[in-house]
């Protein structure tokens, strides 16, 4: 699975996710990536793209959850990502990337590593795999 989240200079957020799914999957199987609110979500507040165990991400409506705890619990972006990864996956394993309309970027994962990269207009840039 691959994904990208962006907030532009106007503060507009967007998210995109694409995948081949699971190796040796049954034909016809649909995972979290195409499900709005599960693998992908964007609103006025943030943009989120998820990857990992599709069934856990779907059950946790993971991408929408980040926006919800920002809206209703007033959490900042990284706190929202950490809260969702910690509290919404049950025994599942997943990772996600997110941006906020104020130009923040964040990511989180509870499995063994995640291929990710992020950058901000102030010059911050990071590419990583492990913790």
């Amino acid at each position, binding site marked *: 699975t691959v994904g990208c*989240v962006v907030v532009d200079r106007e503060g507009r957020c967007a998210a995109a996710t*694409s995948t081949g799914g699971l190796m040796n999957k049954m034909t016809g199987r649909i995972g979290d990536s195409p499900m709005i609110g599960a693998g992908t979500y964007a609103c006025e507040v943030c943009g989120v793209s998820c990857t990992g*165990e599709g069934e856990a991400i779907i059950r946790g409506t993971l991408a929408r959850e980040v926006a919800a705890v920002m809206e209703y619990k007033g959490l900042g972006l990284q706190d929202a990502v950490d809260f969702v990864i910690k509290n919404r996956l049950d025994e599942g394993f997943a990772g996600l990337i*997110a941006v906020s309309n104020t130009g923040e970027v964040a990511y989180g994962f509870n499995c*063994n590593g995640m291929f990710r990269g992020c950058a901000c207009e102030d010059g911050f840039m990071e590419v990583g*795999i492990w913790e």
Partner: protein
Amino acid sequence: MGGWAIAVHGGAGVDPNLPPQRQQQAKELLTRVLNLGISSLRSNASAIDVVELVVRELETDPLFNSGRGSALTEKGTVEMEASIMDGTKRRCGAVSGLTTVKNPISLARLVMDKSPHSYLAFSGAEDFARQQGVELVENEYFITPENVGMLKLAKEANTILFDYRIPTYDTCSAAIESPLVMNGLPINVYAPE
């Protein structure tokens, strides 16, 4: 109002025995697509255009599990899916079950922009792709020799197999003994996306 920001991912749950040269390849691809997005943002491109541009690039490179290099079904074919969402007005588009569309994310964008729906799947999505004139290729285009080998491993292990298309047989079987477990299965014998 802050400035622009961007993040990309190539999948979560990575083989602990990932060979260093493959780690380097992954980092180079992530850096390349990140820079592609950054230069677009510096040219004032909109967020929705940048996420589509970056994911198209990731779909075209066979390294990660999407587009060319996608994981294979039990029948050895490729079935792809994608979605895109624009935070402004929360517009969205999604597709599933694609077998011939070269860049699934662009079809998802067309579902969002050019159809009255938000999700099209399987033959309906393929019909829409032909109507919209997007680039179509044979299913073989998406299948890589590495993934054919990975599918063979998965079938021999009688399970769904991790899709990071890195381990050769020995690292995969070695990794199967790894202590890491995911949903009751050794991490490398499990298949998150």
